[in-house]
């Protein structure tokens, strides 16, 4: 099982990821992703693996990674 890791030094808060992965991420008032689970690097349940992959590919700054 993988986790979602945000490289905060790269992320510029476009919020694309929160739209693609609303089960795990929401956006703060500045547009930066917030983990819904409270975990620093939220765990990806098996049924969301595809969505997580898509979010990873869609991040324009390669700030979101599955680790």
């Amino acid at each position, binding site marked *: 099982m993988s986790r979602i890791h*945000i*490289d905060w*030094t790269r992320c510029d*808060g476009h919020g694309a990821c929160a739209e693609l992965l609303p089960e795990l991420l929401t956006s703060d008032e500045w547009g930066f992703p917030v983990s819904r689970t409270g975990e620093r690097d939220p765990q990806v349940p098996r049924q969301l693996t595809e969505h997580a992959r898509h979010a990873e590919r869609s991040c324009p700054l390669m700030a979101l990674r599955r680790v």
Partner: protein
Amino acid sequence: MNTPMNVATRPLGSRRDTQRLLAPEHRGHQGPVDDLPALSLDALKALAEESGLTGRGGAGFPTAIKLRAVAEARRAPVVVGNAMEGEPLSDKDAVLLNRAPQLVVDGLLVVSHALRAKRTILAVGPGIGTEAVQAAADRRRERTLVEIARLQGGFVAGQESALVNQLEGRRAVPRDPLVRVTTRGVDGRPTLVLNAETLAQLALAARHGSAWYRSSGTHDDPGTSLFTVSGAVSRPGVVEAARGTRLGDVLAPAGPLDPVAVLVGGYHGAWVPAAALDTRLTHADLRRYGATVGAGVLHVLGSGRCPLRAAAEIAGYLADESAGQCGPCINGLPRMADSLRRLADRRPDPRLPAEIDHLRRLVIGRGACAHPDGTARMVASTMHVFANHVAAHLAGWCPTDERGPR
């Protein structure tokens, strides 16, 4: 000195039996290093493990674990001594480097030898004299070449990966923690960064053994620590005390002046109220206050100072010191500092505590380094320990009645 609070760079007297690093015999010691054992890696690992030595730079991480991480890597590592002392309230590394620099160098020698390090570097922050430590390094040149690097400062410049970046000629900002410097650091090599005091402690432990090391302090928190005492005291300075000593006893030589609370652990630390000065300086005893020994900063808040104003100033400073890389830190810290300032200004806005709480939770765990978390910790402690001041300020008055707006 890089200390707005004007911490004196002189050691204060401490009890003879707790003087190790600051013992008179180490003072300006010029002698040979023949008595420094050349430990094997296994012997060093065992020493770190058995002595229970923890990092003295702030995070308090067990030295044995870091050492193991670097030793497991395949490439020859780089060893870095960290004397950046980015915390404005800390002066102990400066005192150590002037008073017993040979201990810091000896620590580097022991570690570098055991790890067969490719390079050995001592990183020194601005305002700290390097003459004494350079002389100590020169006298040990035949054993190991220690490069002394004078670097730019800043609150987060001493963070491990920021330090590695600066040593490589890049901006002194933290890296994403996914790849630790123990895996890839200076020159792409596994890098072991140890605080200057940690190295000095290690040098003594290497000479005298882990049983000797453990003969001071408590079982879970062995050894001594250097503490920098500042604020409302008549003699600010650096004290050495056994771990587990009562807070009040460590402060005593500095002469506290009507203390209300003590900020333990520095700007990223937490307040211990003056009613609890008998708290022992161990991780277990300080946990109740959300504090840790950290780098040994003890900042005394006197009764003439508004705690909320003091905390707002610290939060403002920390917001300015954000390395400007991570969105939640860039946006959240100034907002949090501003809300705290408005509270100190006695704005009668009942939403302020909830807003501060919200911002605090929002920044925790959402940066490349622990700067947001540390700032949030200090702010949470302020709201908790000074709850009566918070209530009074919301009602429009200040129990300290410090002159300020309103």
